């Protein structure tokens, strides 16, 4: 091979590597996007059971209950318009509580209960998880437009 051909084949090798890397990235990307839905959207049947996604809103007052094992927790997440029952096994974040914003990540069971794999709460007193406030805002907006 002449130096020129060598150079060309190296460039081609680099491009081939790059192309396969891009293909890898894009396919992994498509499979792992976690979409965010609000409790109202779930109530309207917009979320597919079995798919992994995030739900945000407020933890409904009086809804937190611990199972007999002490580890399983059930509660309801609400965006003030609709509430979604959630079950979670494990320790809850420090600032998880009633009337506080929270985001649950997991799958919707066919029976309509959301099985959370992860629960996020706010980091400090003033901060509300952005997705939780988004859910409540959406519900408020919907309520507003219904009235008008």
């Amino acid at each position, binding site marked *: 091979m002449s130096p020129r051909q060598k150079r060309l084949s190296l460039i081609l090798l680099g491009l081939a590597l790059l192309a396969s890397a891009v293909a890898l990235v894009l396919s992994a990307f498509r499979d792992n996007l976690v979409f965010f839905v609000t409790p109202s959207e779930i109530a309207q049947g917009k979320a597919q059971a079995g798919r992994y996604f995030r739900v945000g809103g*407020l933890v409904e*007052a*009086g809804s937190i209950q611990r199972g007999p094992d002490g580890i399983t927790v059930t509660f309801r997440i609400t965006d*003030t318009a609709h509430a979604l029952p959630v079950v979670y096994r494990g320790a809850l974040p420090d600032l998880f*509580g*009633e*009337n*506080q*914003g929270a985001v649950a990540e997991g799958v919707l069971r066919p029976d309509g209960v959301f099985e959370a794999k992860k629960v996020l709460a706010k980091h400090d*007193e*003033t*901060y*509300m998880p952005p997705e*939780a*406030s988004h859910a*409540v*805002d959406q519900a*408020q*907006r919907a309520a*507003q437009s219904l009235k008008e």
Partner: protein
Amino acid sequence: MRWKYVVPLVVFLGLVVLFAVGFRLNPREIPSPLIGKPAPHFTLPRFVEPSATVTPAVWAGQPYLLNVWATWCVSCRQEHPMLMRLKQEGVRIIGFNYKEIRGDAGLDARKLSPEAEAQLAWQRIGAWLKTGGDPYADLVVDLTGRAAIDYGVYGTPETFFIDAKGVIRYKHIGPITPEVWQDQLRAKWLALQEGS
């Protein structure tokens, strides 16, 4: 082969144009759907006179801040001295106590009768105002939180900026700290006053 060195610059400029156009197409979301709308109507008991009820109409004529709070809310405690300071500076603050008993995770309101709930709430609010001072020109109590729903309240503290005509101009989420007041809110308050 000189052109290939221009590629990074072209890609970068392309991104800049894309973002600039993108941001222009989608103006920033309005933080609350209530802004620019008249403050929602409610009928709630006054703290000083539980038997009488008021509606937002009684405060019209002058701009005011509607401050949503509760004694169980830690950030409200933090915010309270600042409210006292604002009162001294002549800011008219209307208090809106939110789910005083039902919102408190430490209490089980279901065990209480409505009368006992109201009594406990008034007791707690009274104690709070006695120790921390009373920054409110008027104070209403929303035990059930039903009125708050119309305001899109999802946490405490929240403060609505309402102009002389009774229109919501701004909503601040979280405590009013001296810094936030200085940097953002004071200007908004002054604008309300000029408008009246």
